[in-house]
């Protein structure tokens, strides 16, 4: 019995050590340390600042706060990826949903416990509509989602820009921005670690929900099978088009939720162009890729990336090393994981390959 447990632990740690993610992390940190050293810095001190800056005091609060949009956008893109849909429109869905939520929060009167959920709902609905457009584009007009969803990001930016400049502008400030979200319509903060947005709970619930959906629901099964092999899924009677539409609606809705959260929970004003600056949709995309689109790994990886970014800022403040180094780290992790995955795929001998696949393979 004990032996089995020990074996199990040994097995897990062996797998963790061999895992491409572990390798990539080590590699990335080593490279970052080398860069700091070569440019005349002290890698240990920089690393220390990065660590303490990310997980102590207000740093911890900030890490948790930033994890909300990163994990949220990663979840949104992961459900699309799992069904084999390349949805690059997360940004647009987030921005346009965010503005919708903001409008409700600013202009609809009422108590907070009504307005906050209502604003989130509005954000989700408008985000979903923004996801629906490319989905119908693909199922009705055969326009690839990959392209339309990406282009719609610019349309979303333009529409929100117009609305903010010409319809919703707050003349009282010099920013191109809406009015501030009234006190009552803001996302409440939980009294932990010095105030963490309630949206973190929302994200945790989403993670749990998606985990449930993919392990035990028909919808999750159909999505996953479609992502694995669309021909087989269709052959098995799965309505691939309908699933595509549903997935894009859910992905868009999550994007809209996150966009709304970012305004009514963080920025409090919708400043034109501001939402896209932090690049949450793209960080989320990388997180999802790294976590192979699984909800729980996405949660962990998202937290980690958030800590990396917050820690990077602390490092710049306290050790004088540019925060861009954490961006470099992020990028190196991704590239290293991708390489390792590619190499391992090459190694694995497959005795019998489908014709479709073998068509793409060459000599041994």
């Amino acid at each position, binding site marked *: 019995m004990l032996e089995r447990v020990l074996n199990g632990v040994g097995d897990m740690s062996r797998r963790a050590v061999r895992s491409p993610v572990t390798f990539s992390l080590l590699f990335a940190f080593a490279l970052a340390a080398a860069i700091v050293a070569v440019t005349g810095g002290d890698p240990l001190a920089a690393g220390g600042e990065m660590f303490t800056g990310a997980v102590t005091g207000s740093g911890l609060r900030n890490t948790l706060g930033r994890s909300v949009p990163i994990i949220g956008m990663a979840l949104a893109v992961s459900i699309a990826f799992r069904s084999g849909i390349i949805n690059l429109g997360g940004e647009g869905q987030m921005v346009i949903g965010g503005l919708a939520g903001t409008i409700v929060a600013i202009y609809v009167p009422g108590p907070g416990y009504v307005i906050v959920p209502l604003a989130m709902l509005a954000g989700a609905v408008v985000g979903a509509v923004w996801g629906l457009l490319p989905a119908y584009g693909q199922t009705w007009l055969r326009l690839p989602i990959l392209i339309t969803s990406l282009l719609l990001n610019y349309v979303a930016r333009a529409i929100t820009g117009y609305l903010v400049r010409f319809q919703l502008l707050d003349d009282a400030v010099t920013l191109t921005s809406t009015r501030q979200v009234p006190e009552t319509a803001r996302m409440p903060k939980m009294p932990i670690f010095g105030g963490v947005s309630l949206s973190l709970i929302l994200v945790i619930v989403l993670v749990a929900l998606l985990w449930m959906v993919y392990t035990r*629901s028909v919808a999750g099964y159909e999505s996953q*099978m479609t992502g694995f092999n669309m021909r*087989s899924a269709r*052959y098995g009677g799965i309505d691939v088009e309908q699933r595509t539409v549903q997935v894009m609606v859910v992905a868009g809705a999550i994007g809209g939720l996150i966009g709304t959260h970012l305004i009514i929970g963080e920025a409090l004003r919708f400043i034109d162009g501001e939402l896209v600056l932090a690049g949450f949709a793209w960080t989320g995309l990388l997180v999802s890729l790294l976590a192979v689109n699984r909800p729980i790994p996405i949660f962990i990886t998202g937290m980690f990336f958030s800590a990396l970014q917050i820690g990077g800022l602390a490092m710049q403040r306290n050790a004088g090393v540019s925060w861009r180094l954490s961006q470099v780290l992020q990028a190196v992790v991704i590239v290293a994981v991708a390489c390792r995955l590619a190499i391992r795929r090459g190694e694995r*001998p497959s005795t*019998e390959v489908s*014709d479709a696949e*073998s068509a793409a393979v060459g000599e041994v």
Partner: protein
Amino acid sequence: MTFELELRGITKRYPGVLANDAVDLAVRPAEIHAIVGENGAGKTTLMSLLYGLFPPDEGDIFIRGERVEFSSALDAIAAGLGMVHQSFKLFPTLSVAENVVFRQEPRRRGLIDRVAAVARVRDLADRYGLAVDPEAAVEDLPVGVLQRVEILKALYRDAQVLILDEPTAVLTPQERDQLFEVIRRLRDAGRTVIFITHKLGEVMAISDRVTVLRNGRAVADLVTAETDPAEITLHMTGRAVDLDRRAPEHQPDQAVLEVENLTVLGGHGRAVVKDAGFQVRSGEIVGIAGVAGNGQSELIEALCGLTEADTGAVMLSGRDITTADVAGRRAAGLAYIPEDRYGVGTIRRASVSENLLIGHHREETVQRRGWFDRGAVARLTRRLVEVFDIKTGSVSGPVSTLSGGNLQKVVVAREMEHRTPLLIAEQPTRGLDIGAIEFVHSQLIRYRDQGGAVLMVSAELSEILALSTRILVMFEGSIVATLDPRTVDEPEVGLYMTGAHLEAAVA
């Protein structure tokens, strides 16, 4: 004497499976050596070990008396081995010659010498009677020719030993005869051929010796001339199997599937199915015979809703399903065993149990309001694995670890479990061992006796003759004959398949 090739005590374990158990195999120079055994007996695994795709857990490999250790297939190729896998690994957009010389291109002043490449490949092809045009693009070639390209690839690398894993499973009888001719020429030129098959007729026809694997062990090493199919079967299964028995007769009832004037257009706007009309009634098995590529696949895909028909009408149990999608057709009462078990019938990256669930996943018995009853799913999986004797280490493991025959059983088990009024079975026993074939045949007959209608396409004429109530023959997209299996024999059906009767009618 020195053996061309010798394996001693080869063992390979997978979690829950002993794929090869201390296997000894001795192959003499210039012999054709057949390897037979039931599905999952370990044939493919043994050959992959020999070819250096992965190392054995235990055991040694000797080539011409010398012990070798391969760390990859490149080592095996260097040692004079060549392997043709069951599915091919070619670049579709390149020409035959380019595929053959890939990575060992003849060079002139540092550049690839295309003229020399074509010449060498043509020369090689001529020498062994492999009819291939070196300049043709691979994507335009039928399966039988692709296999020749793979053989050429091995010969170009000067393979002394050629390993063929179930090479005849995808061939028409004509192509198979041509392949045998090539194999004999190779042997006469002093090369050695190892040949995996489930068809004992082929073993008897072409091999010099035969090794039988059973549950991972080599249980017999026989000289073909001194044995017979019955003895080989006994070694393989431990019991006698009778395949030639004809299905007992059964009275068909009402029409389940009605097809009228069905025309399907192919890639170039050319009709690949022309004006097909027929019925399948409950309680009968209708067999479609035809040389591969005469419209059978296209007809079936159109019936299942995977491609669109151009004109015509399809009725299932009295309902018009002409414009229905696959889901709609399945709901109307149709199950389908597709020909391509790798690309369509199964999902490689999913588990065995997820694969067995395809198409059942919305049934009331396994889910309620969109959430699976995991106990019910496990019970369904376990039952199908047991009834069809699917050999698998674990049902939650990826389906890609199953042997070819066991993968086929997954598809057959799942589709028969639907118990729909109509079952469409395309090459239902491809890749199965004789025991499994016998089992699937008896299941098809039971399906029929319980009032099911079965539409079957098979490249095996014996299968068509043994099971069918009626035989439809397809030639160049048309149904050219409806035959009664009680009154025709194989050669006669063969004549219809080649369109010979049409010429006779014109003359």
